[in-house]
């Protein structure tokens, strides 16, 4: 089971990110987490929220360049080194991860990653007893 993530392409111009969040909050969409990656020329803002379908449609309507992506979200329990273990098991399982980020959700660590090898990832998650996050 994967989570739908919304990615927004942004110009490196002040105010463009604020407009994304304003658009979402005006539509009554609750943000779960967001990350921003940028180069000299542009930025990509990745968003998890309570209603990705609606987020996608309101952002498109506002004229943003938006893409919906399936990502994995894993709950990490409190044991130290749990994130390292999880990442190691993907490396050993031979799947390549295009990006990864983590955040705290309802008191627990959540690790989000994107891979193009979806089936392999599903199998690895099951085999290693990892728990998928319910966001």
């Amino acid at each position: 089971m994967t989570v739908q993530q919304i990615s927004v392409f942004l110009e490196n111009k002040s105010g463009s990110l604020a407009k994304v969040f304003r658009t979402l909050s005006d539509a009554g969409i609750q943000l779960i987490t967001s990350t921003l990656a940028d180069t000299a020329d542009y930025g990509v803002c990745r968003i998890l929220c309570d209603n990705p379908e609606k987020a996608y449609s309101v952002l498109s309507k506002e004229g943003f360049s938006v893409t919906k992506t399936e990502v994995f979200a894993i709950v990490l329990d409190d044991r130290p080194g749990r994130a390292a273990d999880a990442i190691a098991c993907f490396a050993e399982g031979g799947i390549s991860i295009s990006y990864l980020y983590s955040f705290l959700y309802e008191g627990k660590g959540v690790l989000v990653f994107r891979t193009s090898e979806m089936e392999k990832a599903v199998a690895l998650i099951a085999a290693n007893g990892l728990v998928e996050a319910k966001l």
Partner: protein
Amino acid sequence: MRDTYPFGIASIPLDQCVRLHSSSGTTGNPTVVLHSAKDLHEWANALARSLWMVGCRPEDVFQNTSGYGMFTGGLGFQYAAEMLGMLTVPAGAGNTLRQLKFFTDFGTTVVHAIPSYAARLYEVMCQQGIDPRRDTKLKIMAIGAEPHSEDTRKRIEEMLGLKAYNSFGMSEMCGPGVAFECKEQNGMHIWEDYYIVEIVDPDTLEPVPEGEVGELVLTTLNREAMPLLRYRTRDLTRILPGKCPCGREHKRLDRMKGRSDDMIILKGVNIFPIQIETILAQYKDLASDFLITLNTVEDNDDMTVEVELSELANVDDYAYLQNLSKDITRKLRDEILVTPKVKLLPKGALPRSEGKAVRVKDLRKKY
């Protein structure tokens, strides 16, 4: 024409003229074109004939998205469409939501638009959940005023589900209706009962051999108020050799290759914006708007091409975005022999113009 501004080269008394069109032009002083009542009638006739050629009939509903001021695409198409007997919707430029409402409410079948506006119409249709094939009766579009590539035409046809025909004209020769594509969509028939056509080398002014590119030179045959003899249009094109399968004998002009005056000279290389457009139009992940900016960086010429992503671009994938700009850079370099900086923009980031799109911004130091 500029030297005698405004009325110096009128060939009939002003009281016999009924209209003037003035072009601000992109290079310098304005020009004025005067028309007698007969001139307007002839102009409408040439353009009505063009519209008939691509299948327009009196039962059609014609919507004109051109500005109705001095821009000849407004009144020019208006009179021609009325002469043909179509029901006309003189919508004028801009206000895209209203244009779409007219399409659906009035059952518009034929529309006149500049190519960049055709893309804009589609963009707003998508936002509004309008499917042009399902929700409109559009079937014919006349596109002109901006040079565009075959790929751009195909894209417009695909997006809007209609046939798009290239229209050529210039205000000095009245306006649209000088030449127009037939249903073969291979070259624009130039109306030789209205114009004598020559293609010359812009440097030597000698005629070029048939089929070769040169500057289009026109002589008007039946204008009263302002006949022009061997007028240098600055448009670069060629005559397509051979006969058109449609049977018309009027010579065919190839797509405009650019203008001898919108040519960019960068690091000593001649570049036409149409070359850039032709490359960009090959990418499904790009929208049709782009802007070329020329700058002086450390005393060197520098070119930046900004282009908008289309809704098909996967903006989550960094590697893909990087490869995309690299690939565009390489293809542009192969075409224009200069390496530009390519900047990807979110869709809608470039300023929209209601008239002719601005494609080149020259900010270079002038010496």
